[in-house]
């Protein structure tokens, strides 16, 4: 559940990246955020992950108030979301298995559960066969699948992805977005910021269009025009 209420984000240098936006994304929805470069997509996503905080207005994510949240509550909040980056960010000295395992270790999951969960997660993203491969032995699409397995490892209610297919070719991109669709069907809310028209048009999901920091369109079965 995502609520933005009259949110404005002004960066330190004075750039007004988001201008008085109000958005609600209910639990379980699949939503694209699109718009031209510089329209504020990443800024919006960063406010969802609480990498940035709004300058004015209110943001509630999974019931947490992003302005009122205490510092010690932030890790717990972060475990309720999964994050996927455009540049994937796998640890190069760890195998696919270990990269997923890492997310579970960090949050204190015990050995036995880790050994059950990691193969299950790799199966969901279709990488069971490549569990012992290192990132540089995997294609871009495969790497992003590992990152997806890692993002959902702790069972988040919400998955946010900023340009998850930004570095991938169209065919691979479709594979990734369909995987995101499947994760969404399993009950996870998914928010994807992108300017990749192929994946948007393929999914026929909600599309919020930003321009110069404002919502200019919001369609339930949107298209990238």
């Amino acid at each position, binding site marked *: 559940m995502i609520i933005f209420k009259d949110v404005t984000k002004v960066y330190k240098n004075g750039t007004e990246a988001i201008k008085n936006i109000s958005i609600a994304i209910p639990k379980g929805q699949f939503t694209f955020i699109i718009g031209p470069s510089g329209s504020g997509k990443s800024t919006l996503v960063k406010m969802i*992950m609480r990498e940035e905080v709004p300058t004015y207005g209110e943001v509630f994510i999974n019931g947490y108030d992003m302005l009122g949240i205490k*510092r*010690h509550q*932030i*890790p*717990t*909040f*972060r*475990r309720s*979301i999964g*994050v996927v980056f455009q540049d994937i*960010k796998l*640890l190069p000295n760890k195998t696919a298995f270990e990269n997923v395992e*890492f*997310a579970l*270790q*960090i*949050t*204190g999951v*015990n*050995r036995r559960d880790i050994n059950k969960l990691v193969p299950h997660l790799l199966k969901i993203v279709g990488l069971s066969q490549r569990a012992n491969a290192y990132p540089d032995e995997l294609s871009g699409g495969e790497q992003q699948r590992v990152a997806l397995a*890692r993002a959902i*490892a*702790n069972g988040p209610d919400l998955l946010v992805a900023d340009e998850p297919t930004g570095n991938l070719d169209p065919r691979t991109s479709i594979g990734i977005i369909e995987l995101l669709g499947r994760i969404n069907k399993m009950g996870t809310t998914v928010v994807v910021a992108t300017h990749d028209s192929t994946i948007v048009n393929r999914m026929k999901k909600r599309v919020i269009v930003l321009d110069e920091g404002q919502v200019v369109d919001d369609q339930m079965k949107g298209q990238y025009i």
Partner: protein
Amino acid sequence: MSIANGARIVKESFTNMSRNRVLTVTSIFTVFITLLIIGIFGLFLLNISYNATALDELLDVKIFLVPEADVYTINDLNETLNRDEKINKVEYISQEQAYEATKELFDDDMESLGLGADFLPASFVITLKDYDQVDYVVDIYRQYPSVYKVTYHKESFDFTSNYSKWIKNISGVLGGILAILAVLLISNTIRLTLYSRKDEVIIMKFIGATEGRIKIPFIIEGGLIGFFGAIISFIVTGFVYVRVYNMFMNSSGDELFLTGLKIAPLQETLLMVFVGFIVLGVTLGVAGSLFAIRKHLRV
């Protein structure tokens, strides 16, 4: 935190250290030099205070009283001296005691010389808390009408206050500068680690690692740098001290022995140096890491 988890975190720290080897070694070296200097000056000071008892007598101040001083005046002065913040110890020596002490010295020849018990004046023997204050204290008591004269061994005071003050100042300033340098260098090393592990930190942050879990490997890394620096400086300092100690012990009969100087005992001293070095080294290391990560690792 489980043992496996703890072991993994320590391993992480070691991996970090091997990643920027040159800086790590430089940092360890700085800790080593810092502790070495602090240690050598510290041992010097320790042995000076250990020998201070030998100098004690030379550092007494004697306040002689006029013969007419009566019991009340003497009592008043005694109280004043005891209340004086600058004075450590007060001892009254009556005419009789002074006479007896002198008699011993001259093999009972005093009487034959026709000198009676009232030949020597009564006195107070005082010791000071701070040897620097001697001129000030002497000036005050000199002015009392019941005081005949005040004597002290000026050279001894000058020696003691000047030398120990200089050693303290030099080791303090040098140690301080080096400690700051060590902290800065360590923090530089840690900052480099931080940089090389930027992605890992971002991942940890968004996976929901606690701030403590993110910081601990860096803090351990700093602590280890301090620890290794401390071990090396302990080995070197210990080696030097054992050499000096043996030199002292084997010198019975020759000049060194005749000076009456003593050296602080080997085992206790080395243990003290060891504990001191480890505590100081690890503190410097941890301070360095905290300095490096203070802003960077907010969740």
